[in-house]
């Protein structure tokens, strides 16, 4: 498999890090914190939890660095698999609480990466993102997790089934249900916004 410059440098970083060069680990953290944090935020829909989970994921990655094998794929993919597995475990635990307390309707103001140069457009972009995240948070954790993996991460159904250890048919129906529920939640929210 041909690897890009980042993958090659990742390999060097990992090797040096395992030899005790802690500065190389810092480079890894700065390189991947955004990716992992964003994934954690999409999975949980909570800013505070995403931060804690990102920290937990990096601690896990750090302790497992020696088990990374180049022949099994790029370091970036390995990081994402580690992150995803940790988040899936978290979702399983969260599911119990979610069912007990029934969802969340906390609103969070987040710091989004701003692409638009125009302030009005930036505000619109931010409001739209908050609206989507707010609706996404209303889904049950397992529906949310499956939908994020499929629609945002672009995983195949088979990959989701493997990662979550859930039968393929269940994964498909979960994602179908998640898409429909999210559309209905968004529609309801839009109507509420128009009325208010």
């Amino acid at each position, binding site marked *: 498999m041909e690897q890009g410059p980042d993958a090659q440098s990742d390999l060097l970083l990992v090797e040096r*890090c*395992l030899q*005790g060069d*802690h500065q190389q*680990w*810092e480079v890894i*953290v*700065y390189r991947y*914190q*955004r990716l992992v*944090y*964003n994934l954690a*935020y*999409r999975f949980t829909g909570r*800013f505070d939890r*995403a*931060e804690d989970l*990102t*920290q937990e994921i*990096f*601690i*896990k990655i*750090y*302790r*497992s*660095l*020696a*088990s990374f094998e180049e022949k099994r794929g790029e370091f970036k993919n390995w990081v994402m698999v580690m992150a995803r597995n940790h988040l899936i475990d978290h979702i399983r635990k969260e599911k119990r609480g979610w069912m007990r307390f029934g969802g969340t309707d906390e609103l969070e103001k*987040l*710091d*989004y*990466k*701003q*692409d638009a140069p125009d302030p009005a457009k930036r505000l619109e*972009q931010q409001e*739209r*993102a908050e*609206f*989507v*995240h707010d*609706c*996404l948070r209303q889904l049950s954790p397992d529906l949310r997790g499956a*939908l994020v993996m499929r*629609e*945002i991460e672009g995983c195949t159904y088979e990959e989701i089934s493997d990662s979550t250890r859930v039968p393929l048919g269940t994964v*498909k*129906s979960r*994602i*179908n249900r998640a*898409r*429909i529920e*999210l*559309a*209905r939640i*968004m*529609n309801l929210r839009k109507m509420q916004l128009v009325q208010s």
Partner: protein
Amino acid sequence: MNCNDFENQLGDYLDNHLSGAPLDAFEQHRRQCPLCAMLLENVKDSMVLLRQLPEVEPPAGLAGRIIAATSDAPAKPLQRLFSFFHLERELVPHLLTAALVVLFVVSAGYNFFFRQPDVPGASRAAAPAWSP
């Protein structure tokens, strides 16, 4: 096809996994049922919004906190043992305390149930009589 079937096949339709007669039936129901047609449009719109989500900025200082939390050397043998048994390092003091409590209870139980009580005078009786 009814509305329930339409909802069940919506995912396959969006993933382009429908073809032939099932696809025709799906399209026909969409044309005939305004509610299902609207649902399909809403699902498509929501997926577009979802895929367009901008990235979230990690909080300032997160990388620093991660680096501080991982200031020891990576993958020590003891840590690997902990991770093998799914143990967190923070649990170790609690496990040691629990082990000490168990040890105390077992030894107290042993003393209470199995150890022969010291009978006062028993050793004196066995001792040779003093003679001037």
